């Protein structure tokens, strides 16, 4: 994201979760609805979009960035590498909650406001 991480383009590109159409249906969500993604390690609001590089029912994809890192598994199992992928998540509709910008998100999480 060389265009600048404080810019809205970053939020639009990475503050999303790509989901399979069948999963969106199960959830009862339209495309481009805001959803709350929760893992054992945290939760975050992102926009649910239809997977462009699918299909893969049951698999959600959040691009690397602070949104993904709000829910990833920080355990490194003594390798130094957090377990970024393959984290079990739950998704629920959160129509009225906004997707924060990268900076707001990180600042608020750090201050313990969300």
């Amino acid at each position: 994201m060389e265009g600048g991480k404080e810019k809205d383009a970053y939020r639009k590109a990475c503050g999303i979760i790509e989901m399979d159409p069948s999963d969106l249906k199960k959830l009862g969500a339209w495309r481009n609805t805001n959803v709350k993604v929760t893992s054992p390690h945290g939760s975050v609001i992102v926009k649910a979009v239809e997977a462009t590089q699918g299909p893969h029912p049951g698999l959600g994809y959040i691009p690397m960035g602070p949104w993904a890192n709000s829910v990833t598994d920080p355990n490194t199992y003594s390798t130094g590498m957090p377990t970024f992928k393959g984290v079990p998540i739950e998704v629920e509709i959160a129509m009225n909650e906004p997707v924060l910008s990268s900076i707001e998100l990180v600042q608020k999480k750090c201050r313990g406001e969300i």
Partner: protein
Amino acid sequence: MTKSVTDVICPFCGTLCDDLEVVVSDDGKTIVDVYNACAIGAEKFMHAQASGRVTRPRMQQPDGSYKEVSYDEAVEYTAQMLAKSKKPLMYGWSSTSCEAQSVGHEIAEQVGAIVDNTATVCHGTTLLAVQDVGIPSCTLGEVKNRADRIIFWGCNPCHAHPRHMSRYSIFPRGFFTNKGHKNRKMIVVDPRNTDTAKMADIHFQIEQGRDYELLSALRVALRKEVLPDTVAGVPKEKIYEAAELLTSGRFGIIFFGMGVTQTLSKNHNIDEAIMLTKDLNEFTKFSIMAMRGHYNVTGSGQVLGWQFGYPFCVDLSRGFARYNPGETSSNDLLRRGEVDAVFVLGSDPGAHFPISSVKKISELPSVAVDPHITPTTEVAKLHVPVAFVGVEVGGNCYRMDNVPIDARKVVDPPEGVLTDEEFLTRVNKRVKELMEA
């Protein structure tokens, strides 16, 4: 009138393209256009010029807002923080030149810091695997001229390294590959049907996290032993077919990315991928290469390697170099609360680390050196803006295949803005005074 600078190096991804042409205004101050780069590369050059760029250091105030300070104050704060700290973490180093890294390491040695680079969250597990089993690799030039079997495992060069395929791996006509992509067979292993996967001759859409199984299965198939009906969601016929395809080539290469290094089996995946490469060498010539992300993360590993003997997670706090990923790695140190100050240069852990680690950084005395405003600079106590390496200052960088390339300066940095190396040199000098006092 404008003039054009040729053979410019793109300081963005590990492909480190060296054929860019940048058109600059007559006074040599503004970039007008960028040719040959991919969209991300071009954006890096144009973004350097964006208005509203921060050109002076900023210190966080108690209410969370930022106030402009001078470079002198910034040097003083950084030097004091590092000199006073018992075990500071000096993290990043992937988006800067080898020259700057070297000065940084000198500071780290004096203050007894831990030096870690972005490999810790991307190819660190690769480095562990290489230490376990070695690595048969080659340069991208050899790939271009010779390779006719290409595997992309858990990586998506269409998006992450956009010119990789056109310059080296799939499309170019090389010495022994004069028909370009018609000479080559491409296999992609990815749980997602990525744009890269769509171009492949064979796409293994494996179950997420089952790379180890599939790698082992390929090794079994090479030996013509029996496989279960499906492995990792892939039917066995396809695995035998792929094994056949790989052994029939003259020169093959496995490129692998985050898809293998960040899943649960981590370094064991890479171990297995390297062993598969080794097995394939019984039949034909095969190499393997990590798709490094940041343009000079490879250089950081090199400089650390020749100065201290280890490529990342180097702990200098005891006065000699120790290395124990899992203990001396950034995320483990932050999780256990073992560091008492954080210095970040040339990376954005605020966006790339799990949020629990970012929170730890925000609670400690911290300095972020970065030309951009990033999530890291906005939680650090001090943000020091610097010139863009490869755009506003030259310096040495290492491509993903460990070939060093000198990046070029194209335009001047904004008035009064220091380079990484200048800032570090000043901090180094001040630290020396403080440590001797």
